[in-house]
């Protein structure tokens, strides 16, 4: 064999090994029924933390559903640790032994140990940096989405609390400061009747994180409340119930005189892209 082509061949072998591993990770479906195992093997040899992430995610989902967590000793841990031992221990040793053997053989075509070690090292370095970058970017998106969801949960809970407070207050007789059975039958100071107001509700906090508005279209038996968040919605020109524009808001309509109300919860999220098609 031409001596000048041997260094090139060395790197072709290395790239082939790295390419096969990349196929294991990026296109596991090519391997049909064994694709999950192939992908696991790919991660074990390039980024073992991914195997641990998969395991801890399954564990967290199990806890979410009321099952026990699966932390501690597990098969995933053994795969992950084996991967770490291969990447930090076996791979550098393969390269060193490859160099040493080629010194004794005095051949420019290096032994297979060197090709294997170098191929694994290249893919582990590449996948490691790529994963760091991807997860870093992904997390910022996921965190923002989760924070928005938790804020909307708080708003929904506040509307539920205020609805029950309003309904209970409407049931109270006038002498207890209620509406005598109606949302539109509260006593004004001059003795006339008026509709329910937020100031009638013990649980309303004017300094709370959301702006709450009771709809003017209130009837005897049905109340509509809107909570406006500080979160920016998908349409900056959307007219919010509190006079602002472009915020995500939630509207809750309920009739406490209806039967089986819980089955007819009417909560509508507005100006939020997830729910845009339902508006």
């Amino acid at each position, binding site marked *: 064999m031409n001596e000048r082509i041997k260094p090139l061949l060395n790197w072709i072998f290395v790239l082939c090994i790295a390419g096969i591993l990349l196929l294991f990770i990026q296109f596991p479906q090519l391997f049909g029924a064994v694709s999950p195992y192939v992908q696991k093997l790919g991660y074990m040899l390039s980024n073992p933390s991914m195997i641990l992430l998969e395991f*801890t*995610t399954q564990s967290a989902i199990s806890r979410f559903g009321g099952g026990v967590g699966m932390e501690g000793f597990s098969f995933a*841990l053994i795969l992950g640790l084996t991967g*770490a*031992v291969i990447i930090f221990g*076996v791979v550098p040793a393969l390269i060193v032994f490859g160099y040493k053997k080629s010194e004794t053989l005095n051949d420019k075509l290096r032994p297979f140990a060197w090709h294997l070690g170098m191929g694994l090292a290249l893919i582990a370095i590449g996948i*490691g*940096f790529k994963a760091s970058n991807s997860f870093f970017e992904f997390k910022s998106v996921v965190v923002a989405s989760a924070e928005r969801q938790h804020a909307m949960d708080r708003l929904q*809970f506040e509307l539920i609390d205020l609805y029950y407070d309003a309904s209970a207050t409407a049931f109270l007789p006038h002498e207890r400061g209620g509406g005598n059975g109606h949302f539109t039958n509260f006593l004004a100071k001059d003795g006339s009747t008026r509709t329910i107001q937020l100031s009638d509700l*013990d649980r309303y906090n004017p300094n709370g994180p959301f702006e709450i508005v009771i709809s003017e279209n209130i009837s005897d038996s049905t109340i509509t409340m809107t909570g406006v968040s500080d979160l920016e919605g998908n349409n900056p020109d959307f007219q919010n119930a509190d006079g602002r524009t472009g915020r995500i808001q939630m509207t809750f309509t309920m009739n406490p005189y209806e039967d089986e109300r819980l089955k007819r919860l009417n909560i509508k999220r507005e100006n939020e892209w997830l729910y845009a098609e339902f508006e």
Partner: protein
Amino acid sequence: MKQKTGYILTGSLWLLVAAGVSYLSGNIWAGYLTAVITGVLYLIILDRTLIQSLEKPNQKLTLRIIIVLLVMSQSFAAYVIYDMSQFQQDNLAKTRSSIDEGVSKLYTQEFLLNTLEFYYNQTDQPGTSIASSFREVMGDQLQPDGTILFTDQYVNRDITFRYEIPTPDKVIIRASAKIGKGEDTEFVNVNSETGKYQAVATVTPDGIEYEREN
């Protein structure tokens, strides 16, 4: 041969130590961190012995660059992925608590609102109280042991509801989650769980109150 056996033994010991750390700490990531730290120590030893003995300086340099990049890329990836896994766990736990809080708020207040409505529709009847209205509204969902067994079975699967009638004009429902976590991890719930979400809803002739206890 002797050298290869030595490497196999070192690798096995390395695995065992890391797995042992995970087993003892109950945390899968603790074992992985141990494996990475042990790996870096091993690489330093490898550098001082085998790599140092390579004849060509460019081979030494190439190998050292590869080792540094390997340690950096794997350490960054492990940290970012660990961080993501912690976030996922926290987020799922928070979501679970939110679901339990929502169910608790709706069910406790719904039945107390029905009680209040019934009470004010029956006030002209002698002997009507909040307690009697509550018993009427809830019917056989009230169990003798103080729990409420809703006809909607899935609600009871995740939350325990207990009622108390301290006076004829006051009824209390306590909702205690079985899964969703509360704020205080040491809090002892009425359903014998620890650290779970718990809230108390009260109805009197003056209205309904709802307060989170954990």
